[in-house]
C-alpha cells in the first residue's frame, strides 16, 4: 500500500501548491513534481511486507511490488522527457500541476489494477487508470486532433470496460465469487464461463490494443501529446498485460484449453496487423503505435506458455519494452519539442547533425526489433522459448516471420537517419538536462537489462509468486 499512499500524498501536495503558487511561478512546479516523483520512485525500492487489505481485494507481494517499481521508473522517464514540452507548450495554458495530478491518478489506478485480488478492485483500477488519461490526451484543448483522439479513446475505453464488466458478471455467475482465489477453486468449465472468458479477454484486449481491438490505437497515439502517447504505449499496456497474465494464469487455469486457442489466434493476428500496417507509416507516432501493437502480439507468446516461465518472460520483456519504447519516444519527443517535426522524412540526415540522438534511436529500434546485444533480443528470445517449451513451434515460426517483416520497418528510420544525406536536415540542438537524463536512463536500461543476467534471475524468482 506504500506506493499508493505516497503517490496520493504527492497529488495532495501538488494540489496545495497549485492553490498557493502565483501563476507566473507555476513553471517551477514542474521541477517540484519531478523531484517528488523521483523520491517516490526511489522509496519504492525499499522492502515492504506482503499482505492483503479489504478482505483480500487488495494484495501485494514482492512481484507486484517489483512491477510497480518498473512502472514508476517508466513514468519517471516519461516525466523527464516531457519537461521541455510542459515548459514550452503548456506553461502559457496555465495548467501545469493538473498534468501531474491527472497522470499520477492514472498511475494509482494502475497500481490498484495490478494489486487487485478481486474483480471489483480490478474494475475500479481499470476505470481510474483510464479516465484521467482521456483528459490528458486532450490536454492541449486547442488542438483538434488531440480532442478527436480523446473522444475516440473514451468511446472505446467505455465500450471495452462495459464488455469486460459483462464478462466479469458471467464469471461471477459461474464461479460464485468475485475473489480471484475463490473463482480459481470453484470455476467449472461451462459455456457461460467460456463466454465470460471471451468477453473479459476482449475488454482487456482493447486496453492492450490487441487485434482486432486495436483500431483506436494509431489515431489516439497520433493525436495525444507525445508524453501521453508513451504513457499509453508502455505503462498502460504493461500494467494491463501484467493483470491479464495474472488472471489467465491464476484465476482461469481451468479454461486454459480455451484461452490458449484465443491467445494463439489473437497473437498471430496482432503480429501480422501491427507489422503490416507499420510498414507504410510516415508519422513517427503512428509508426510506433503500430510497432507497439505488434510487440503486444509477441508478448502473447509468453501468455500462451501458461506457466511461471511464461510469466517470467512476459515481465522481463515488458520491462525491456518499456525502456526501448521510451528511448524511441524520447527521441521523437526531443525532436518534436525542438522543431515540431514528427515525420520520418524529417529525420533524413539526422546522424550528421545530431549523432547522439540518432544513436539513442538506433539502440531503441534495434532493441524493439530484437537485435543483440541490446536487451530486446533477450526479451524476444525468451518469449520464443516460452512458446516453444509448450510445443507451439508454428506460432514461433509465424513470429519469426513477423520479426523479419518488422526488421524492415525498424530499419526505415535508421535508413533515414544514417544512410541518407540531406541539406535541410534538422540542425544541431541541445536538449535540456531532464530530457538527456531521461534518454540516458532509457539507453542504460536497454543495455543493462539484457546483458546483466541477475536481473533476469531475480524476475525468475519473483514469478513463482504470481
Amino acid at each position, binding site marked *: 500500500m506504500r506506493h499508493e499512499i505516497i503517490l496520493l500524498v504527492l497529488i495532495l501536495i501538488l494540489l496545495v501548491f497549485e492553490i498557493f503558487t502565483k501563476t507566473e511561478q507555476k513553471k517551477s512546479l514542474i521541477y517540484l513534481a519531478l523531484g517528488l516523483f523521483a523520491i517516490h520512485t526511489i522509496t519504492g525500492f525499499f522492502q515492504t511486507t506482503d499482505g492483503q487489505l479489504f478482505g483480500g481485494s487488495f494484495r501485494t507481494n514482492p512481484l507486484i511490488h517489483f512491477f510497480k517499481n518498473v512502472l514508476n521508473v517508466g513514468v519517471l522517464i516519461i516525466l523527464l522527457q516531457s519537461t521541455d514540452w510542459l515548459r514550452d507548450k503548456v506553461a502559457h495554458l496555465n495548467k501545469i500541476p493538473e498534468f501531474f495530478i491527472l497522470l499520477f491518478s492514472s498511475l494509482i489506478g494502475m497500481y490498484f489494477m495490478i494489486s487487485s485480488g478481486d474483480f471489483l478492485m480490478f474494475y475500479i483500477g481499470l476505470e481510474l487508470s483510464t479516465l484521467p488519461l482521456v483528459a490528458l490526451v486532450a490536454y492541449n484543448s486547442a488542438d483538434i486532433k488531440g480532442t478527436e483522439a480523446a473522444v475516440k479513446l473514451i468511446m472505446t475505453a467505455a465500450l471495452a470496460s462495459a464488455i469486460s464488466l459483462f464478462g466479469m458478471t458471467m464469471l461471477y455467475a459461474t464461479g460464485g465469487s468475485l475473489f480471484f482465489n475463490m473463482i480459481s477453486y470453484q470455476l467449472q468449465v461451462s459455456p457461460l464461463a467460456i463466454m465470460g472468458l471471451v468477453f473479459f479477454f476482449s475488454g482487456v484486449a482493447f486496453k492492450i490494443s490487441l487485434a482486432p481491438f486495436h483500431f483506436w490505437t494509431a489515431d489516439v497515439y497520433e493525436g495525444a501529446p507525445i508524453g501521453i502517447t508513451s504513457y499509453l504505449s508502455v505503462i498502460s499496456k504493461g500494467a494491463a498485460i501484467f493483470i491479464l497474465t495474472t488472471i489467465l494464469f491464476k484465476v482461469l487455469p481451468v479454461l486454459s484449453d480455451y484461452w490458449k486457442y484465443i491467445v494463439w489466434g489473437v497473437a498471430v493476428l496482432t503480429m501480422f496487423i501491427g507489422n503490416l500496417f507499420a510498414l507504410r507509416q510516415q508519422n513517427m507516432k503512428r509508426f510506433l503505435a503500430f510497432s507497439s501493437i505488434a510487440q503486444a502480439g509477441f508478448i502473447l507468446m509468453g501468455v500462451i506458455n501458461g506457466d511461471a516461465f511464461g510469466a517470467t518472460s512476459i515481465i522481463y520483456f515488458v520491462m525491456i519494452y518499456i525502456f526501448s519504447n521510451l528511448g524511441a519516444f524520447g527521441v521523437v519527443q526531443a525532436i518534436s519539442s525542438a522543431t515540431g517535426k514528427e515525420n520520418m522524412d524529417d529525420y533524413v540526415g539526422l546522424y550528421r547533425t545530431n549523432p547522439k540522438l540518432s544513436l539513442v534511436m538506433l539502440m531503441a529500434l534495434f532493441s524493439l526489433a530484437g537485435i543483440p546485444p541490446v536487451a530486446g533480443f533477450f526479451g524476444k528470445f525468451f518469449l520464443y522459448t516460452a512458446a516453444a517449451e509448450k510445443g507451439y*513451434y508454428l506460432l514461433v515460426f509465424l513470429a*519469426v516471420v513477423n520479426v523479419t517483416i518488422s*526488421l524492415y520497418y525498424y530499419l526505415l528510420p535508421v*535508413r533515414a537517419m544514417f544512410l541518407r544525406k540531406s541539406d535541410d536536415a534538422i540542425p544541431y540542438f541541445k536538449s535540456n538536462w531532464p530530457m538527456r537524463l531521461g534518454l540516458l536512463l532509457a539507453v542504460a536500461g536497454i543495455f543493462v537489462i539484457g546483458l546483466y*543476467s541477475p536481473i533476469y534471475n531475480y524476475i*525468475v524468482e519473483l514469478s513463482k509468486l504470481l
Partner: protein
Amino acid sequence: MDILTLLVVVPVLTVIALLFTKDLKQSRFITMIGSIVQLGMAINLLFAYFRERAVNASIMLFTRDLTWFESLNIHYSIGVDGISVALIILTSVVVLAGVFISWKIDDLPKEFFVTLVILSAGVYGVFISVDLFTLFVFYEIAVIPMYLLIGIWGSGPREYAAMKLTLMLMGASALLLIGILGIYFNSNADGGALTFNILEIGKVNIPIEAQKLFFPFTFIGFAVIGAFFPFHTWSPDGHASAPTAVSMLHAGVLMKLGGYGVFRVAMFLLPEGAKHWSNFFLVLAVIGVVYGAFAAIKQTDLKYINAYSSVSHLGMVLVALLMMNKTAWNGAILQSLSHGFMTALFFALIGMIYGRTHTRDATKMGGLLKTLPFISMIYVIAGLASLGLPGMSGFVAEMNIFAGAFQHPDLFHRIISILTVSAIVVTAVYILRVVGMMLMGPITDSHFEHLPKDTWYERAGIYLLMIPIVGIGMLPLWLSNMIMSSLDPFIQRLL
C-alpha cells in the same frame, strides 16, 4: 583473462578507443593497432593450440564456462578446435588487410571503423562459442553491422542492396532460431537437463522425428549466409554495392559462418536429420555451384563476377560437407580458408582497380598489365588460385573435395561429383576471360596510361593475403592435419 575471450575483448576495446578519435588518421591508426594485436593473438593461439593439443585430447581446448541465464541453462561457454583456430586466423588476416585497404575512407571514418570492428568481434565470437545461445548472439552481432556498412559507405543501389541483404540474412537467422529452440527442447532426450552446450548435445541422441523436423531450419538458417541456392540472391547485390573492405570481410569471413554453422551445429547436433536430408540439399548445393559459375561468365562487372564465383565456391563447401566423409570435410574447411583469403584478395584488387579507373566494367578496360603491373600480376595470381592451380591453396582444397566426393560409388553421388568438377572448367573460363579482356591487349582508354602507382598500404594488404594463399598451397599438410584431427568427433557422430 583467457586467450579466447581476449579475441572478443580486444575488438571491444578498439571500439572504445575509436570513440575518442577525431579524424581519419587517428581512427585508422587505432584500428590498425587493434587488428595487428588481434592477428598476433590469433597466431599465438595457433601455437598455443599445437602445444595444448599435444597433451590434451578433448574435443575443445581452452574451454571456459560461465553461467549466464541460470534458469535456462544458458552459459557463456567457449572453446576452440582446429577448425575454429584456422578460421580465426583467416578472420584476423582479412580484417587487418581490410583496414589497410580502407586507408583512405573519407566519409565518417570513425563510424566506419567502429562498425567494421563490431562486425569482426561478432565473427570471432561465433568461432569461439560452444554454447548455441552465445553463438547465436554473436552471429547476429556479426550480421547486422552489414546494413550500415553497405548502406552508408556503399555505392550504386546501396539502400536496396543493404536492405535485401539484411532481411534475407536476418530472416534466415530467424529460421535458425527455431532450429536452435528445437534442439534445445530435445536436448534432454537421454534424461539429462536441457542445455545449449554443443558438446553436451553432441552426446545426446535426439529423437529421429525431431531431427528430421529441425534439420532443415538449422541448415537453411546457416546456409543462407553461405550463399546457398536459391537463397543466394542477396550476395551479388550486397557485394557489388559494398565498399571494398566490407566486400572483403563479407565474402572472406562472414560467408564462412554458413559452412561453419552447418557443420558444427546442424550436422553435428542433428546427424540423423543430416542423413535424411543430405541428398535433397546436395542437389540444391550443386545447382548453386554450377549456376554460380555460369552466372559469373555472363557478368561484366568485376564485383558481380567475383560475387557469383563466391556462390559457386561456397556451394562447393556445402557439397563437400554433405558428402559425409572425412576427406570431403577436410576439403570443405580448406576451401573455406582458401576462398576466404582468395576472394578477399580479389575484392581488394577490384577496389584498387576501381579506385584508379573509376569503372568496374571489365569490357571497358584493357591493357592494365602495362600501366598497373603489380596489381595486375597479383590479379592473375589470385585468378589462378581461384581456378585451382597446383601450388595455390585452391588446389589443395578442391583436390580434397573431389577425392572425397568420388569415394561414393553410387550413381547419384557420381552425378553430383561430376557436376561439381565441371564447375572448375567454367571457373577457368570466367577467370581467364576477365584476365584476357582487362589486363592483356592494348590500352583501350588514354586515361589508363597514367594511373597512380600502388601505395605501401595497398601492398601491405596484398602481401598479407598472398602469403597464406601460397603458404597453404605449398605446405598444406600441417593445416590439413590440424583440421583432420578435429574431425574425429564429427566422424563418430555422423558416420
